[in-house]
């Protein structure tokens, strides 16, 4: 466990990023939920929190693995000269996604539990399905944005990808549910499956980039 965390922390740009990742960011999301309740209805807030988290995760990743898969960037010779280099990258990428998914799950559980308590146990099933669907969709779209952020070493393009995915969930949701009358439950499930494929593919692709660094041709 310690080795995994150390590998992940090796990619964080400075101690301040650990403060942001482990303290500022989670506290800000919880604060957003409570403050947001003063202005937004429950349903709107359930949509806002995942999308804000999506944006925050993309921003953080720009400074951690941003551009890592771009041509030549995975060729870090300090790591390549050691037999432990490839393993370190694999562990860092895995811990990064575990942390991210854990944050989403914990935040979702918190939002659900608080709403359940607030509603006296009478949560609308449709609302719950909607919330899970939004969460799954946001996480999946975030994984797509991370493909761009990690493969293109250009801040403008990375911010462009971030902008698109922040706006995309609302549009897609309206199109898929209103026009195609898609069931929330199946949409959420589909997003979870796609998320799993996207995450696995991304880790595989980036570790492949590290392996390719050992070859000039």
């Amino acid at each position: 466990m310690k080795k995994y965390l150390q590998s992940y922390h090796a990619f964080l740009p400075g101690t301040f990023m650990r403060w942001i990742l482990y303290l500022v960011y989670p506290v800000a999301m919880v604060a957003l939920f409570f403050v947001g309740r003063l202005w937004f209805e429950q349903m709107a807030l359930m949509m806002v929190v995942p999308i804000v988290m999506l944006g925050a995760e993309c921003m953080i990743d720009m400074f951690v693995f941003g551009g890592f898969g771009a041509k030549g960037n995975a060729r870090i010779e300090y790591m390549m000269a050691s037999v432990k280099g490839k393993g370190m990258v694999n562990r860092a990428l895995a811990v990064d996604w575990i942390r991210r998914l854990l944050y989403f799950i914990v935040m979702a559980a918190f939002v659900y539990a608080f709403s359940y308590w607030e509603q006296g146990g009478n949560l609308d099933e449709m609302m719950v399905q909607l919330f899970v669907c939004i969460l799954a969709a946001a996480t999946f779209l975030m994984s797509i944005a991370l493909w761009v952020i990690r493969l293109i070493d250009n801040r403008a393009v990375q911010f462009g990808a971030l902008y698109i995915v922040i706006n995309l969930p609302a549009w897609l949701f309206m199109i898929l549910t209103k026009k195609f009358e898609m069931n929330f439950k199946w949409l959420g499930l589909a997003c979870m499956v796609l998320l799993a494929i996207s995450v696995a593919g991304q880790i595989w692709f980036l570790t492949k980039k590290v392996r390719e660094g050992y070859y000039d041709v």
Partner: protein
Amino acid sequence: MNIESILTVNNLKKKFKGFVLDIPELRIPKGFSTALIGENGAGKSTLFHVISGTRLDFTGEIDYFQGEKEEKKIREWVGYTSTGGYFMPNWSISQVGNVGSLLFDNFDKERYQALLEELAVKGPEGKKKKEKSISKLSDGMRMKVMLASVFARDTKMLLLDEPASPLDPLMRDKLCSMIREYIHQGAGEKSVFFSTHNIADMENVTDYAIIMEKGQIVEQGFVEELKEKYVAVKGESGDAGKASQILFSFQENSFGFEGICMAKDLDKLAGMDVATETPSLSQISVAVMKHYTSLRS
């Protein structure tokens, strides 16, 4: 003199973007400091990439530490610095130390911190300043961090690719001292193999020289042997025509001519008014590189 080799290369070939590295045999003597000299594009970095294990697309055999086969031991015992993307750009100097501890079992963090102070990369621990990221450091500072990271490890061979290039004269002198101390402390068990395109800066720390041109080794030997093999010659303008046919490298100037002659051809200069002296390694390297470049052009 039977000298042990710390590194032996046989039939090494690597093709890269129209360039071919072709080395039938290469031996790095153990317990000495070896310089790999060559002009830009000669293949020095390509050779170092292969030896350091950061490039695997080559054919041939490399024998490390007289037959050591365990990859982990080899990588632990080799301290490598390069000219390319060595660190992650967003790493701080302290992070380099943390990552070093993860990557190498023999990395000494305290020694690393001490070296950073010794090389004036950062001040003593009592005077903490905000650390810059690697990307914001100058080339010279980045090289100092690289050197600190390899000298902080308990290695048996240092593989330094153009370590002197980005350094100021004072730091180059310091580097030479560090290399001499490293070899002295090793008592014959530690070796240094470094590359340079300007040997004048590192000549006083070079025991063995290998000269490379267009991916091939064109000359090699202990410095003292090379200085016996080649002779620096200066002569009058009147003898320039005849001397140009004999000298290994030849250059006319306003006083006459000067160049390098093979010691075995010295008797061919009989009858000419010439002065001879022992050439520097820098003069020998330039002469050899010029000679082989002209043959291939």
